[in-house]
């Protein structure tokens, strides 16, 4: 039984990362009906920012400031800078194509993904950058329940992930910005006619979604230690899958999808074999799509004729 709970903890932790990245996918799709394939690379940029913050403050083995302050700076900087990058992407790459055929922004998104990856390769090199989390957050810190171990980094990822997802839900459902985002997602033209500044709402959506991906990148660096220019591809693929399984355009759906994918991976690895992880997880995706094409929490779209 303890083995089950250990795998559950591992799966929920990874799933929380997928959820945070999937939220950005869903939010952007919700307002723009655009699959932003460059979103996974924002996760990569966030991870690099976190790495360089560690180096800025003395390197993993000689951190010159208290660790909680270091983590706060990492998360805030990653959120701010990656959020800004997301806004820039929207402004210069997607906005001019807003009324173009759907294929145009899709191709642009793929192009931006390669652009970000290649830029990172050029700027930072292809070597693995290592967070060395254990140097500033002890491996023995955390809690142990029987033989189930949950370390501090996992606890932080779970708690912060929960806070961010809850916060986003509240923002979307209870704030003026959230109302405007929902209005633009429902009908962009009508929202514009009602006086909503659509450009500002879309930019805010991109900022929020990208910031979440940046924060997820830092979390990924702390959990898995390694950062290269290509980590965004896997993260983006898993997050996209999570968003689709949960219901693309649905924020609760993205959260659920991410957790499901994370736990499924963990359980398959634990109870069957790591060889079959991707086979079974993506097989499940196909099954969910066949049974419920709009995703688990997605809503079927009415098409007016």
């Amino acid at each position, binding site marked *: 039984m303890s083995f089950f709970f250990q795998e559950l903890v*591992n*799966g929920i932790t990874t799933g929380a990362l997928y959820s945070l990245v999937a939220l950005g996918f869903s939010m952007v799709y919700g307002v723009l009906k655009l699959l932003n394939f460059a979103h996974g690379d924002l996760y990569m940029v966030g991870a690099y920012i976190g790495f360089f913050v560690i180096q800025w403050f003395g390197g993993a083995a000689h951190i010159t400031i208290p660790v909680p302050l270091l983590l706060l700076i990492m998360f805030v900087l990653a959120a701010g800078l990656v959020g800004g990058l997301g806004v820039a992407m929207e402004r210069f790459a997607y906005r001019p194509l807003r009324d173009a055929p759907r294929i145009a922004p899709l191709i642009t998104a793929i192009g931006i993904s390669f652009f970000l990856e290649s830029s990172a390769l050029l700027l930072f090199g292809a*070597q693995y950058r290592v967070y060395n989390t254990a140097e500033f957050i002890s491996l023995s810190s955390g809690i142990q329940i029987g033989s189930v171990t949950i370390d501090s980094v996992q606890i932080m990822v779970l708690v912060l992930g929960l806070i961010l997802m809850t916060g986003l839900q509240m923002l979307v459902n209870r704030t003026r910005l959230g109302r405007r985002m929902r209005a633009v997602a429902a009908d962009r033209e009508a929202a514009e006619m009602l006086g909503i500044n659509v450009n500002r709402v879309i930019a805010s959506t991109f900022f929020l979604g990208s910031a979440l991906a940046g924060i997820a990148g830092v979390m990924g660096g702390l959990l898995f230690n390694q950062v290269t220019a290509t*980590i965004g591809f896997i993260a983006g693929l898993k997050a996209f899958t999570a968003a689709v399984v949960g219901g693309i355009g649905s924020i609760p759906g993205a959260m659920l999808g991410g957790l499901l994918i994370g736990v499924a991976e963990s359980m398959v690895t*634990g109870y069957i074999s790591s*060889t079959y992880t991707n086979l079974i997880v993506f097989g499940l995706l196909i099954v969910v799509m066949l049974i419920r094409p709009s995703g688990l929490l997605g809503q079927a779209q009415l098409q007016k004729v």
Partner: protein
Amino acid sequence: MKGRLVIAAAAVGSLAVAGCSSSSSSTPAASGGGSSSAAASTKSCVASVGFEGPITGPVAPLGTEQLHFAQLAVATDNLANKTKITLVQGDTQLQPAQATTVTQQFVSNPAILAVVGPAGSQEVEAVGGPMARAGMAFISGSATAVALTTGKYPTFFRVVSKDSVQGPQDANYIVKNLHPKALMIVDDQEAYSTGLVSAMVPVFQAAGIKVDHESVSQKVTDFSSLVAKVTPATTVVVLPWQVAANAQQFGRDLAQQHKNAVIFGTDGLFSPGTFTINGSYVSSFGPDITAMPADAAIARAALQKFGSFGTFGPPVYAATHVVDEAIASVCKSGQTPSRSNVLAAIKATNEPASILGQPISFDSHGDLNGGKFFLFKINSSGKYQLIPSS
């Protein structure tokens, strides 16, 4: 009359010019048979040798070390043989696709007569065909998959032993010295890794050890779920991986989940700056040349010029030296070096001693005759200590 004299003078003049250029120093012909040159000597022995290695990418520290030792070998051999061999670098990032691109560049460069590298078995599989079609010899200092020397790549050679030697040797060591009742062996889905697993698993099963064979892509960095499967009875985890950083993360996850299993890794994990898990074992095709008196001068030169190194550099030094000596021998025989005569000279290599502490000669499929592996254990300071062979 005047016209005829002019024409005759021009004809004599052109004959004189042609005669002068045919007796001048030879050109670095890259293909076809070599042409004789009456005045050829090693002093005019000019050639280029390609280097294919992961200079950047996930194993950049290993690739950079290989490059440094190749450069050292070329510099030393040029001095000793009075040759002018130039090393042309090609970065493969350990990716077959990238290695193919680099190989195509090398093949279409007529100045390049042979290649040192590539590093990974999967890269050799990708470039073996183009190299064979170009008639270009290539010698790897680290590709160990058995399938590479079945005869399908007639211009491939290696100065290290292969998985069919390393796999059983390492597996027997684990069985006889670590006595696991159960172990986990994880491949990284590349040719190098799966080849070793195929060679090791039968030895474990024959010894009655319960084997959990897992598989993860090199791109995976989250091993927490896999580590959770390590039971108290699983005292050894075998990681025949190419990316040392991944193994380091695996070791961290083991520690974080309070698992006591010992990691046993192979060549790809030999990375003193990256893989430092205390108590781990690493099996390598290269010796520790700092402990070999015959290699003291090379070790000193390498340390001075490039800093600390592991076991990936010396085999590449040996490989480059083989190529350099082949080119020099062709020049000494009065021929202009070309791909075909350099290939023939490499096939005929018979060095009684080398930086690897053993003679170098190749069998008919390009394998090193008498190759062996070396075992190291990592201590608490991250230092790799050689375990004497019994």
